């Protein structure tokens, strides 16, 4: 072996010591995904082995030297039915198993903590409810379901964390969601997997999984002073949303207190449940999403609010459980000084303890 060049030698040693077939399993769903993956590897190996055995076996048994004259056979319904039904059965098993996993990954639990993600050429911007901003990084605690609400500001991107086995497309103009529960503290890859132009391969980052204690410390050390809901509140005031949405009896816009999660009848007669996606549409494209009983007089805010701003407004409205805040901002453009640094109502609600600077 002394003749192997040292470069090659180091290369091989490095590979053999680091060789792995799987990324680390760092989320609750990762082992489940790998179980299905292994099952499929197994049926693939069996299927492939059967094909290879048949080809090699027949090639040896029936090559021309051994078997100079072919026996003509039409076919065999029984055999053909066998290799129709067995693959079909196996494929259906993987279909059901895969679908169970798919529904699990794309159906966030109700108690998940929400983090907002905006993709843009070529970076990921992450907004925590406590007001922590991150670029090309995502800090999450272990043992706690985390839901990501994702949108793209320009082209398609895709938010992929191989160690968690989750991935979701970031689409311009609509929210997508995905959730995970991290299990292993560590630093993992974050990739953009949808081709998005020049620096597609630089649109990468780190997912840092921390123990709940470390995460709390990180939140406290990284806060920007305002929670996301407070940012939303300021935006609400500065865009004069409260001029109409002021929950007074003669207001021109519907009362927004407690609107999140409620059932709403639209001017079109359609009944919908108010969620993040609806709120976004109603802000950016209000004409088509007007509430029944109100004139469609709201102007569009398309192009006036960044996607981060919309997220802040959505977060604000989500936690708007009394009209106190709206009353407070009704005739002010500057927030009272004693509000600085204090969490907005609901921002430290039951879902998000400890994320906001006390």
């Amino acid at each position, binding site marked *: 072996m002394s003749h192997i060049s040292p470069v090659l030698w180091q290369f091989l040693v490095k590979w053999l010591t680091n060789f792995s077939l799987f990324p680390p399993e760092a989320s609750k769903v990762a082992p489940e995904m790998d179980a299905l993956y292994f099952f499929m590897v197994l049926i693939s190996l069996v*299927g492939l082995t059967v094909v290879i055995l048949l080809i090699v076996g027949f090639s040896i048994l029936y090559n021309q030297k051994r078997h100079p004259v072919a026996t*003509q056979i039409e076919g065999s319904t029984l055999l053909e039915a066998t290799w129709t039904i067995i693959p079909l059965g196996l494929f259906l098993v993987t279909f059901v198993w895969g679908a169970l996993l798919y529904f699990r990954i794309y159906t966030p639990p109700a108690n998940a903590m929400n983090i907002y993600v905006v993709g843009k050429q070529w970076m990921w911007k992450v907004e925590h409810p406590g007001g922590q901003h991150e670029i090309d990084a995502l800090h999450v605690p272990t043992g706690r379901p985390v839901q990501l609400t994702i949108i793209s500001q320009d082209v398609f991107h895709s938010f992929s964390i191989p160690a968690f086995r989750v991935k979701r497309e970031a*689409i*311009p103009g609509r929210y997508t969601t995905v959730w995970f529960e991290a299990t292993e503290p560590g630093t993992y890859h974050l990739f953009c997997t949808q081709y998005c132009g020049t620096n*597609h*391969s630089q649109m990468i980052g780190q997912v840092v999984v921390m123990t709940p204690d470390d995460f709390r410390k990180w939140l406290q050390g990284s806060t920007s002073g305002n929670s996301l809901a407070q940012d939303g509140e300021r935006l609400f005031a500065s865009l004069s949303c409260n001029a109409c949405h002021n929950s007074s009896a003669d207001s021109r816009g519907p009362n927004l207190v407690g609107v999140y999660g409620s059932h709403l009848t639209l001017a079109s007669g359609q009944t919908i449940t108010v969620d993040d996606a609806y709120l976004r549409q109603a802000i950016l494209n209000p004409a088509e999403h007007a509430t029944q009983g109100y004139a469609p007089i709201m102007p569009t805010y398309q192009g006036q609010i960044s996607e981060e701003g919309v997220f802040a407004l959505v977060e604000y409205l989500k936690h708007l459980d009394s009209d106190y805040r709206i009353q407070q901002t009704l005739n002010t453009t500057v927030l009272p000084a004693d509000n600085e640094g204090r969490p907005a109502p609901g921002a430290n609600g039951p879902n998000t303890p400890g994320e906001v600077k006390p």
Partner: protein
Amino acid sequence: MSAATIISLPDQGTARIPKMNFLTKENGLLSWLLTGDHKRIATLYLVSITFFFFIGGALAGLIRLELLTPQNDLMAADTYNKVFSMHGLIMVFFFLVPSVPATIGNFLMPMMVGAKDLALPKINLLSWYLYVIGGIMMLYTMCSGGVDTGWTFTTPLSTHYLNTHVVSAAMAVFVAGFSSILTGLNFIVTIHKMRCPGMTWFRLPLFVWSNYAASILMVLGTPVLAITLTLVALERIFHIGVFDPAFGGDPLLFQHLFWFYSHPAVYIMILPGFGVISEVVSTFSRKRVFGYTAVAFSSVAIAVFGFFVWAHHMFIMGISNYAALVFSLLTMLVAVPSAIKIYNWAFTLYKGSITFETPMLYALGFMGLFTIGGLTGVFLGATGTDIHLTETYFVVAHFHFVMVGGMLMSFLAGIHFWWPKWTGRMYPEKISQLAALTTFIGFNLTFFPQFILGTLGMPRRYAAYPPEFQVLNVFSTAGATVLGIGYLLPILYLTWSLKYGEIAGDNPWQATGLEWQTQSPPLTENFPEIPIMDHEAYDYEWLERMQRKEVASV
């Protein structure tokens, strides 16, 4: 090997290439450029797609060279993006789609059904011209700076965010698409209307069945691609707002429209290859294809189901969970006919009398690689694992196993198999067996590591990647080098054989198809008189009786 062979060539001392054949009938450039003869058009196509294959192949070489190291060091990121986009566009639209149908299919279809030519010879020539015009537009795009949309033209990236030659690339594909529509149309009409007396549907060679299925896909699917590309161009030039959410458009609509063509396009590419494998496996095991009807109908089933699985490219794109469920189920169903085919081919070998000439080696290689390609498709068709594997190198490896391991192997099997018919001369057997082996080894070394890379999470279309992925990428690049040699060899020895190959005679493989019952190379009219089909396809006993009769009458 030399003892166990079915090659029976005429006495080389006295044998001559027939003086009158489609190659010698007329001379001069114009006689080629204005020809209506399907065999000459097939030859024109063969030359043109080989040209584009080597451009696409050179681009693939550049991609693999860049990926040799984790850093983005060989070319700028933009250049890399252009290189993989042009590689995809050229390989898909200018090589894979026309590969078997427009060359081998064009050459054989009329002969296999016992006709003098395709039903619409001038349309056939027009289709080649459209292909060339599209090709020139693509070359123009490449030479004037290229395009970096990826072959998928994803909006809104392609419509609003890139300043490369998107419109000319889209129009090149648009024009080339019409060439494939015309070829498909021609095949459908020919198969319905031009079969010789006695040639019933179930006496047709399976090559005809699979090309028929592919033709239906071409005729029904390609117009949707044309519409989609037109919308991309209009959106880009006039901002009509079909796909742009800022104007109330829907970016997912593009995905639906694009994959509505581009998934069936996968079957347009692979189905004709299935046809080649049926012919080759039957001939070299001297046996009827096991379960002829099942193989024929599985082609049709693939064509029908193939239209209803497009959204499996969009599982992570926020389509409704229930839509994903339906498309996943249909995807599983479309996998079954492919499994049927593989096992039917394997059982065709059973109790056969097998020899291992080059086309058979390629065909056996195809069966192994296509099985892997197909089974890994199940990983991606199952919604759960698709979340992890999609948009990674797993997908890249999967479709290269199907397209290169499947389609290109079957194309090479077909080229070697019908080479003696086409040129009247044999290719050199030993070196071509070596080429087949080289291709197989190089292919596996190139693309198998990519499955692992994909599982580890390496995203596709990355010019730079995290250093821990390097070793597998080095294997892949090394494999690509071997693969490149495997593809260069046939070009060299096939060209050599045009002058120095042994005279093949009418039927060197002792095959049963009608195309083998006429001279090599065939007359312009294919047959001295229209044949009458009085036996089933792949009837080797009929062939033996015929040959005995000939010997007796001499």
